[in-house]
């Protein structure tokens, strides 16, 4: 197995007319990572993935998949890539098994593998039912089953937990972790940041077609001390904490004010706020989440944020 990066893009660009959807992005995904690809709606995530998968023609730049960069080589290695883009796309009138049979024929996977992957995603008993009769969760699981067919080294998933209930999300997360245990590299695009934070090892954040930061999840969430404050009117509290000399940044999520601090002296912060007539009902140090980083970097909350 090669040590070359699984995905390596250099100045990848896509223009639709005069509009730049992806603006010269460069990033690297190493073998064995679960790589989260994050960004607000319309930031260029799906277009980037589409270029990697060969369904969108890049305007400029280049990329290598599993060490291959030539047109012929890319086509060859794509058979070792399992991917779904946006929604699971299958023939609605065919059964789950027949849909996988089509994928297996493309990937030159043996028929016996179909039974195995259907079992792995818990769809063995619905294998003969038509795809159109499946629930959204079952469709997502069938898409994951399809990615396991063939000799797959890289799995690319675009919003795999979209529209799923918590139980469905848990199932998808478990399957993703199982895929990684089997030695596969996972490239995961999602706006469910708490899911990404629980699942991914590395993250890149894209905004307006450009990568604004790429790091491991632990590096991304490390840094300054963050405190959560609640009490009185949130807007007033936001303004007061903004004046606190030890505050680096202050944001608000509903009635919770979140402050990045230069130190962890919460007593001083409490005294500062009380001195301005607000008595806090909640004051606690909090782990800086990926969502906090995302908001800082993109200036907008992710859609579909969990509560």
């Amino acid at each position, binding site marked *: 197995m090669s040590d070359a990066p699984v995905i390596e893009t250099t100045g990848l660009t896509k223009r639709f007319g005069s509009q730049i959807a992806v603006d010269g992005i460069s990033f690297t995904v190493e073998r064995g990572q679960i790589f989260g690809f994050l960004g607000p709606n319309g930031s260029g995530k799906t277009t980037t993935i589409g270029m990697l998968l060969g*369904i969108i023609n890049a305007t400029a730049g280049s990329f290598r998949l599993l060490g291959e960069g030539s047109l012929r080589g890319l086509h060859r290695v794509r058979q070792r*890539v399992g991917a779904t883009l946006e929604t699971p796309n299958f*023939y609605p009138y065919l059964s789950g098994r027949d849909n996988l049979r089509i994928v297996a024929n*493309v990937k030159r996977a043996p028929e016996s593998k179909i039974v195995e992957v259907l079992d792995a995603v818990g769809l063995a008993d619905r294998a003969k039912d038509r795809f159109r009769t499946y629930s959204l969760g079952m469709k997502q699981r069938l898409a994951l089953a399809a990615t396991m067919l063939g000799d797959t080294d890289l799995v690319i998933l675009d919003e795999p937990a979209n529209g799923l209930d918590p139980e469905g999300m848990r199932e998808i997360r478990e399957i993703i972790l199982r895929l990684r245990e089997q030695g596969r590299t996972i490239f995961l695009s999602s706006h469910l940041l708490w899911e990404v934070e629980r699942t991914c090892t590395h993250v890149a954040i894209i905004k307006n077609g450009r990568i604004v930061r790429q790091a491991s999840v632990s590096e991304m969430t490390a840094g300054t001390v963050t405190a959560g404050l609640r009490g009185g009117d949130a807007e007033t509290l936001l303004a007061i904490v903004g004046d606190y000399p030890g505050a680096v940044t202050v944001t608000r999520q509903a009635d919770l004010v979140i402050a990045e601090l230069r130190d962890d002296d919460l007593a001083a912060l409490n005294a500062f706020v009380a001195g301005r007539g607000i008595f806090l009902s909640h004051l606690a140090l909090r782990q800086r989440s990926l969502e906090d980083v995302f908001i800082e970097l993109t200036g907008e909350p992710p859609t579909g944020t969990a509560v």
Partner: protein
Amino acid sequence: MNVPALVRNETIKLRNYVPTLVTLGIYIAILVLGFGEMHRRSIREVDPRPFALPTAWNQILGELLGLSVFFICVLLILLIANEFTWRTARQNVIDGLAKEEWFLGKMLLVAIVGSVFFLTVIVIGGLIASLGDDSAVAGPIVRAADLKVMGAFALSLLGYGSLALLIATLVRSAGSALGIFFLYTVLLERLLGLGLGYAFDRGSDIASFLPTVLLNALMQRIQWDPDALAALAAAAAAAGQPVPDLMSAPVLLAAAAGWTVAFTAIAFVVFRRRDL
């Protein structure tokens, strides 16, 4: 190119698709009724022509065979355009098919669907004709002229299939593609032919090279069967009408093949250049 895998996949999609069964079922019913009626009229001597092989090929490879063009094109447009609606064309490429392979799969589909309908006519027509009284007819079961008509018809089906492929690939929506297909074949090309006739001295000659005019001419028995042409000429002379002016066979074949290749090539270039 993994052609056997492409054939397997197109076959899985085709045989499980309800419109395949519906169109094929309707066509079989039409054939059984049509050829059955020809057989009935023959044995009751309502029609003096015996409906028995080999002369029955004149009727089998006639109007009812031409009807298969309609069913084949409808089915191909539904199968191909819906690949874009369902985004399965995109997913096939994501799964590892090169765009060239995907397109080759559709060309194979055109050939498979055409063959299924073509063989259906031959088998049903042949079976019903074999029930007829062949004492009044002589010669081999399939004559040279019948083989020529069959070959020309196969080329015509490929031509129409490639037109359906082009429209489905360009429009990418089954409903709109069907509308455009019928608008073009039923109305636009006729208007174009009339316009050429009015605009140029030899406009009607140019109009005879329009795609569906050519493909329909291919299917005419008189083009390939000297006996049928002689009979028609005699009938025309008896009625005081001019003998039909036929295009030479090589020119007709070359022009029909040219349109088929052109439709396929345009569809391929458009498919390869556009994002999925």
